């Protein structure tokens, strides 16, 4: 059985069928890319999986546990973490506090209200470890909002990693990055393969073809085809609706 | 309870609703569209009512009184805009609450100093003083018909202005992302000043028109502020259509609560309980309605910014 399965997911916005009975499976240790034209419903799908949007129909199963009825934060508890298409960090707080907040979410209850958090060394250690892993150790004291864009994206990823996800949802992690930062990000994501399965949305075909084990193409809310890079590149319809000249790149 | 009575109460509900809309109109514009929480809207309403009452008394001409109220209030508002409000557009709602609460305090004292604390006389224009027979056995205050007409006109005008004209689009653009609007060539400062003045004019119009059927006194602005805000919030902030529907809804629910709830309760409950419960429930009908709507639709009936 697959690590993750979405079965028959449906989402309507008024008259618009944004997600049209989508079935999707992600295997253990796999980087699964999701591509498709703008407005095909990729971000919507991620929102449905992470629970930020309620689905109209369908089921979501992670590791044999049915997450369908659960609230977003409960899904995180079950190992489903995500990043945002638009970087979403705590802009006024230093990177350290950002990481602490993320770590704290997983470390037991957040209703503790008498012990000073500064005194909790375990939290701090976990935050520092996370910073090391994502290359943020040098900027721990800088407010997140003034970091260069690439760093912010990395912080966004670090926040998601704090949940020790089994499936990580990445919505355009390369957005707004120059070639250099993109390369670093690709490398970082590649390293994560050993820890977690990843569902990756990206319009940067370089990144997709380099990272993805399997690619699904979403068009008008439905999965058009699924397969490896060669299959997708060679698929005529994918070429015409999405890849254009990139197919030959 | 006969049909005429029910019909009359229905009409009363609609009339009250339109009255509320008239009062809320300027607030919808400034708060809903420009996203600026102006508690001092009530103060502008008060200034409008005072000026109208005074001019009407001195000149005997109601139209002149309304005109003067609008002009004076717009002038006051312009001053207010330049001195204070202009610097509030970019701040968050709470800061706007704080500053405009300060303006209320100042305005109330200023009105007290100018006109004294005693309520002012505001008479109904002679031509509209009496009732008209709508149908047989149903006299209806002709002045209220004027209010209903004004409410409808203002609703229509606002709807067209905000949703159908370019200036409406520019205001909305400027309110949601000021800098981008400026990048698109919008003189946001000017547009906002214009809209604020328009809001003030609507407040003054409402004040002047309401004066003959209500009490012109200090604090009248605060008294209408809450119902006006309730209307806007039920409708969904930023939606003229929402405010209009909500105003009618509040008017109907409130009137129905007052007219039909006490007798209905008397029919089913012991008299002593009914006598206590009926008016109490009717009194909070508006708030119950709001809580219910927001529970089901947390962003109002017609959420403008989803």
């Amino acid at each position, binding site marked *: 059985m697959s690590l993750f399965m979405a079965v028959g997911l449906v989402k309507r916005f008024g008259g618009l069928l944004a997600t049209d009975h989508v079935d999707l499976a992600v295997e253990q240790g796999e980087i699964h890319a999701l591509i498709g034209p703008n407005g095909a419903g990729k971000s919507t799908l991620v929102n449905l999986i992470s629970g930020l949007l309620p689905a109209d129909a369908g089921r979501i199963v992670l590791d044999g546990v049915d997450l369908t009825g659960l609230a977003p934060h409960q899904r995180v508890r079950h190992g489903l973490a995500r990043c945002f298409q638009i970087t979403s960090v705590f802009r006024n707080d230093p990177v350290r506090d950002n990481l602490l907040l993320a770590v704290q979410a997983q470390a037991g209850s957040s209703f503790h209200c008498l012990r000073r958090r500064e005194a909790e060394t375990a939290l701090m250690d976990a935050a520092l470890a996370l910073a090391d892993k994502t290359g943020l150790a040098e900027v721990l004291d800088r407010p997140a909002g003034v970091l260069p864009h690439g760093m912010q994206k990395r912080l966004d990823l670090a926040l998601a990693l704090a949940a020790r996800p089994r499936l990580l949802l990445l919505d355009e992690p390369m957005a707004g990055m120059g070639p250099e930062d993109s390369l670093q990000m690709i490398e970082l994501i590649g390293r994560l393969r050993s820890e977690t399965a990843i569902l990756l949305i990206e319009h940067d075909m370089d990144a997709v073809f380099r990272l993805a084990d399997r690619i699904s193409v979403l068009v008008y809310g439905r999965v058009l085809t699924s397969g490896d890079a060669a299959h997708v590149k060679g698929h005529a319809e994918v070429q015409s609706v999405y890849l254009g000249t990139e197919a030959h790149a | 309870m006969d049909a005429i009575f029910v019909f009359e109460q229905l009409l009363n509900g609609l009339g009250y609703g339109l009255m509320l809309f008239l009062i809320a109109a300027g607030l919808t514009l400034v708060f809903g569209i420009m996203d600026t929480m102006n508690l001092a809207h009530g103060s502008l309403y008060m200034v409008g009512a005072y000026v109208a009452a005074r001019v009407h008394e001195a000149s005997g001409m109601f139209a002149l009184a309304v005109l003067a109220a609008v002009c004076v209030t717009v002038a006051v508002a312009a001053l207010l805009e330049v001195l204070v409000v202009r610097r509030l557009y970019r701040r968050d709602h709470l800061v706007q609450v704080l500053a405009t609460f300060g303006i209320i305090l100042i305005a109330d004292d200023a009105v007290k100093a100018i006109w004294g604390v005693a309520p002012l006389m505001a008479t109904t224009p002679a031509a509209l003083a009496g009732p008209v027979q709508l149908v047989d056995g149903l006299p209806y205050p002709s002045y209220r018909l004027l209010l209903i007409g004004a409410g409808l006109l203002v609703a229509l005008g606002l709807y067209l202005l905000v949703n159908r004209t370019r200036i409406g689009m520019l205001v909305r653009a400027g309110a949601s992302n000021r800098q981008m609007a400026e990048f698109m060539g919008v003189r946001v400062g000017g547009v906002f000043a214009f809209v604020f003045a328009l809001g003030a004019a609507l407040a003054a119009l409402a004040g002047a028109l309401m004066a003959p059927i209500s009490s012109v006194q200090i604090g009248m602005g605060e008294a209408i502020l809450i119902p006006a805000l309730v209307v806007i919030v039920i409708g969904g902030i930023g939606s003229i259509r929402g405010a209009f529907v909500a105003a009618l809804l509040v008017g109907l629910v409130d009137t129905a609560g007052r007219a039909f709830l006490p007798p209905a309760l008397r029919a089913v409950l012991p008299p002593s309980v009914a006598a206590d419960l009926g*008016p109490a429930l009717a009194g909070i009908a508006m708030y119950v309605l709001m809580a219910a709507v927001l529970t089901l639709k947390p962003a109002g009936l017609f959420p403008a910014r989803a």
Partner: protein
Amino acid sequence: MRFPGFARRLPWLVLASLALFPLLAPALGLEYYVGFVRRLLIVAIAASSLNFILGYGGMAALGHAGFIGVGAYAVVALVEAGFSSAWLAWGAALAVAGVFAALIGAVSLRTRGVYFIMITLAFAQMLYYLAVSLRTYGGDDGYGLYTPLRLGAWLDGAHPDVFYWVVLAIAALVFAGFSRVAHSRYGHALRGIRDNETRMVALGYPVYRLKLAGFVAAGAVAGLAGGLLASHNAFVSPSMMHWTQSALLLVMVMLGGLGRRWGAPLGVALWLTLEEVLKMHTDYWHWPLGMLLLLVVFHAPQGLAALFERRGGQEGVR
């Protein structure tokens, strides 16, 4: 501040001078101000609770006076039923207001922003009109507590100002408690929600429950303040839960400085003192207060506490 040691000792200094005040007051001819400071402390308790949810949690509640009123009427209900223990009454005030806050919060916290402001206002207005029409407790005329509540044991009658010290102790506890919580896991989570709620959800926080917990705590503490206020005034009336009272509380908190440790007490002290002084000298005592608000908005937008606290000493204000 340049003297960190001084900054650390400041709360104790303030506490000590407040504790000594009733003993010194007669000599200085300031007896009346003992009562005044007592009221100030009670209002500061309520304001601190609002500061907690608004400043740290970003929940702009415009119905806080409602909880104060619930607390006060809980005391009235117990007195009417024949109880006379102050601790019981105040405990009830805390608990009943907490229950109301749980019910109201459970509904209100589904909304955000201005909708939240307005729905909390709506509930407070319902409570207000309920109190106005409650005949048993005097309705609009209010309810007088003709015999003071008993503190029990040796406390009663030990000194005319025992009640003052009790209030001071409670205020100090509440104040220290909120400061403490602000630095705990819970306090950090609350601030995270204020700054970026969606992200907090995606991090796995039970955001709704966290907010509700804060709202209930704040409501309960406001209720406690209401209970104390009932004892202080020996009188309870619906006017204490009128919406303008909620607005005033908000104004005082913002005047002092949102989300700042000293914000609430500073704002309360300044506002009430000014009110007291201005009223003595002129009938037109509202407009200077109005001007003060404008001044703060434009020249001290972080509130007064920000002017005193050392830079960066803020506890995360947006």
